[in-house]
């Protein structure tokens, strides 16, 4: 079961929206990062069961952060949560190894389904 979630997004509003979509009946330990570089470092320290990753961010974008996280832990579950819904962008991050894509704005239904997928995969 997912216990630790890392949210990487430069927008505090976006992070708030995503957090509010997490099921209230479950308890999670949540860490947040405002850019890809901080996100990668936090991933290494926090060791989340699931990471939500925005793509368009300052300092280090989500694509690069995704690459670095997967280089560190090839089994990392990184869900890209993005407004960039161009087919090329989605295919690119899936090819790199993103676990799943959630289109912004997130909904409770989408986030719940994502958590179920990860939980099922983790047995």
């Amino acid at each position: 079961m997912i216990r630790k979630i890392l949210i990487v997004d430069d927008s505090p509003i976006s992070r708030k929206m995503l957090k509010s979509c997490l099921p209230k009946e479950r308890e999670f330990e949540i860490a947040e990062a405002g850019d890809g570089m901080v996100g990668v470092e936090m991933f290494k320290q926090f060791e989340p069961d699931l990471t939500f990753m925005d793509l368009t961010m300052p300092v280090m974008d989500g694509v690069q952060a995704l690459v670095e996280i997967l280089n560190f832990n090839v089994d990392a579950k990184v869900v890209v949560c993005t407004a960039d819904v161009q087919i090329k962008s989605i295919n690119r991050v899936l090819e790199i190894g993103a676990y799943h894509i959630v289109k912004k704005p997130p909904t409770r239904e989408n986030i719940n389904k994502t958590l179920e997928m990860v939980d099922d995969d983790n047995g």
Partner: protein
Amino acid sequence: MTIDDGKIITDEEIDILQEIMNIAFGTAAAELAEVINIFVELSVPYIRLIPADELPEYIRQEIHDVSMISMVEQNFWGKFKGSAFLIFPADAGRVFISLFEEGVASEDEGADSMDILAKETLIEVGNILIGACVGKVSELLGDNVTYSPPSVVLGNHPNDEIPQGLFDPANSAIVLRTVFCFQERDVSGFLFLVTSHESVQWIRESLATFMAQYE
């Protein structure tokens, strides 16, 4: 920006609007990419609210050579009401021509027909980007807007100047500075939404409603 300072929108509202614009422009880019063979490299959007009559000066500061720009205008009506201005380099229309599968003209057809085709292409790109972006903003905020046909208000001619009277001083400009880059073509642009104070008030109420679902 705070209401206490006599300004019309709070910092938090700007943050929410920024996220909504981010989502809207992502949608717009995807719609454009479905129509023409292009990948739009999106940047972190930047939002400011300024008096509309300060917009020409703002554009001059942001775009160093304003004598070489093309500007597409499209008006929209709903509770969210105003004008959208999409700004490209002056030769963008010609660059976009090659991206459309149909209606491609060659230089052999003459300068006049190329100018017309470049202008029509620019209008079509503007129509898609503005329509999808404004449409998504209004959808997320619970509105439904209608549009005027887009037109090129400035462009293709060096030494065109931004008319000072183009922007009503009674209005506010939501400056969405997304520097979007058409990767294969090295073309970037800006989108500005100019809206009335009345619409800004509606936007503020709608942002609160939008965020209430995330409380």
